[in-house]
């Protein structure tokens, strides 16, 4: 038995044990029961992995932020503060669940549920390792975005039902932002799907196997169009998961807590959890689409199990999101919309064209150069003349009087 197949081996062992127990009890386990049990095991396994990751992330994010800000971060509960999530959880669960009297009670109650269901369903289609796809869907990418659409409804429900001005403003911002950024997000995912020729996440990962030019892994991020699409997808993912610099819906310096203003206790915890799991899922998709999924970068590193590679890459992307949060100020609402429509969307089309050029130019060195030009020139032009034209340091002069 090797590490590569460890998760599958565990699953098989549990199934065998189940059958064995059935046989001991003198019952022939019907195949549907086995299917049911195996589905349950997979669900429990994935959910527990994601929940543990959520718990870890909630403390590590604060620790990383702290370190980047010359602080220690939480270090009181348990060794290195690692039990902080437990303390947070106890606090959240024991807090009074306040519902404003003038709130729409039913919708207010349903919003966290509507938020958490799609979030928990998202991780189902990600390929975690070689042969480790919980649900093999031919149109897995579509599944992901279809479920992601449900989050918008939940955010709107939360914001509207609270009957609070900050909440409704936050909800409106959230919807505007999610709709705007879904376009570049889907467009850049489409690029990867086009090049791979399939909408199945596993298929896209397979398409990124191997090494070209002898050194560069075949991950899409190492091609010019793939790099552009990856960055666009990353920015879109930041916006979809409402993270800094796109945390306008929660914009605490303006809207107090946006659509979460009137949520407390366990309902708030559910929103919090859903947001983080959604973030992991979308990071997982980014890893799948552009970072080669569970593929090792070089053949000589393949002794490390594929699922380790997946989670390592996932951890890296999640870390980078914390890193961005430590650095960036927040966009303003109109700038956020402008950025989506005037920069992100055109750039995603440019990346699409670059990908097509790369494909038809033979996917070689020349193709690399052509697609680099196709991406770089519009980027510089767009960046220079559309977005940062009015906003540079160069246009300012400061006079000094002695």
């Amino acid at each position, binding site marked *: 038995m090797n590490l590569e197949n460890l998760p599958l081996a565990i699953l098989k062992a549990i199934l065998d044990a189940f059958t064995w127990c059935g046989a001991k009890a003198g019952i022939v386990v019907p195949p549907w029961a086995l299917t049911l049990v195996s589905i349950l095991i997979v669900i429990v396994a994935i959910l527990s992995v994601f929940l543990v990751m959520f718990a870890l992330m909630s403390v590590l994010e604060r620790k990383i932020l702290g370190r980047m800000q010359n602080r220690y971060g939480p270090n009181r509960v348990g060794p290195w503060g690692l039990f902080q999530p437990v303390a947070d959880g106890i606090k959240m669960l024991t807090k009074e669940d306040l519902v404003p009297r003038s709130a729409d009670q039913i919708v207010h109650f349903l919003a966290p549920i509507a938020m958490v269901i799609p979030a928990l369903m998202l991780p189902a289609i990600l390929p975690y390792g070689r042969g480790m*796809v919980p649900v093999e869907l031919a149109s897995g990418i579509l599944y992901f975005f*279809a479920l992601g659409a*449900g989050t918008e409804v939940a955010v709107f429900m939360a914001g509207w039902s609270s009957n609070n001005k900050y909440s409704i403003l936050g909800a409106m911002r959230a919807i505007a932002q999610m709709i705007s950024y879904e376009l570049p997000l889907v467009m850049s995912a489409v690029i990867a799907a086009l090049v791979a020729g399939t909408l199945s996440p596993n298929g896209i990962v397979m398409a990124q196997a191997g090494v070209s030019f002898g050194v560069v892994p075949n991950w899409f991020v190492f091609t010019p169009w793939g790099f552009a699409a990856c960055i666009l997808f990353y920015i879109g993912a930041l916006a979809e998961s409402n993270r800094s610099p796109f945390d306008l819906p929660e914009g605490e310096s303006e809207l107090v807590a946006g659509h979460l203003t009137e949520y407390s206790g366990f309902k708030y915890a559910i929103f919090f959890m859903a947001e983080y799991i959604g973030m992991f899922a979308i990071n997982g998709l980014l890893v799948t689409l552009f970072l080669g999924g569970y593929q090792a970068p070089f053949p000589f590193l393949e002794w490390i199990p594929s699922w380790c590679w997946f989670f390592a890459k996932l951890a890296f992307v999640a870390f980078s999101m914390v890193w961005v949060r430590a650095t960036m100020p927040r966009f303003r609402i109109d700038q956020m919309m402008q950025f989506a429509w005037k920069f992100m969307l055109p750039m995603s089309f440019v990346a699409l064209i670059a990908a097509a050029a790369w494909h038809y130019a033979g996917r070689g060195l020349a193709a690399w150069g052509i697609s680099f030009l196709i991406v770089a020139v519009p980027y510089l032009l767009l960046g220079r003349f559309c977005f940062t034209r009015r906003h540079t340091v160069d246009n300012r002069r400061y006079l000094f009087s002695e």
Partner: protein
Amino acid sequence: MHDLIQKLTALPWDQSPQWLFLIPAGLMLLAAAAAVALRNLIHSALCLTLSFIALGVLFIALGAEFVGFVQLLVYVGAVAMLIIFAILLTPASEVSASNNPFRSFKLSRAVNAVAGGAVVALVLAGLFTAIFFSPRVRAAVPSPNAAAPVALIGENLLTHTLLPLQGTAILLTAALIGAALLAKEEKES
């Protein structure tokens, strides 16, 4: 071993009992009815969204993954949000009961009921006709493999149905430009 796992965790739609169909279908009908019946417009919109979701689930249950996901993506992600935005952006005075344009039809309840019933009957009749007399629906067979439909749909869209596709695109662009123009004019006045 991979095959085993895949076999075990494959979508169990094929083996699922027929009555499971009733859950999304019933939910869809209930939500649709609630969307009509509820007084609060936002509640109606949310119920409509629920019925969209149920419809999407229904498609998926029937094996039409692609259509189901597109249904969710387009109807829940875009259309429902559009409806909600439209409700939110319309000033309250324009949707309040006081200046309901249909108020001027001073008809008796009986006449109202008869007219409403007639409309419902017409719609239902049209639907049933479509279902029972359309040869395609009867001939529909579950797809042999899961991956084919996406590619097939894509190919069809860009070959046989290219003209309607482009027509729809032009229509949507025109609508977009029109909306932008309307919004702009309003701002200037």
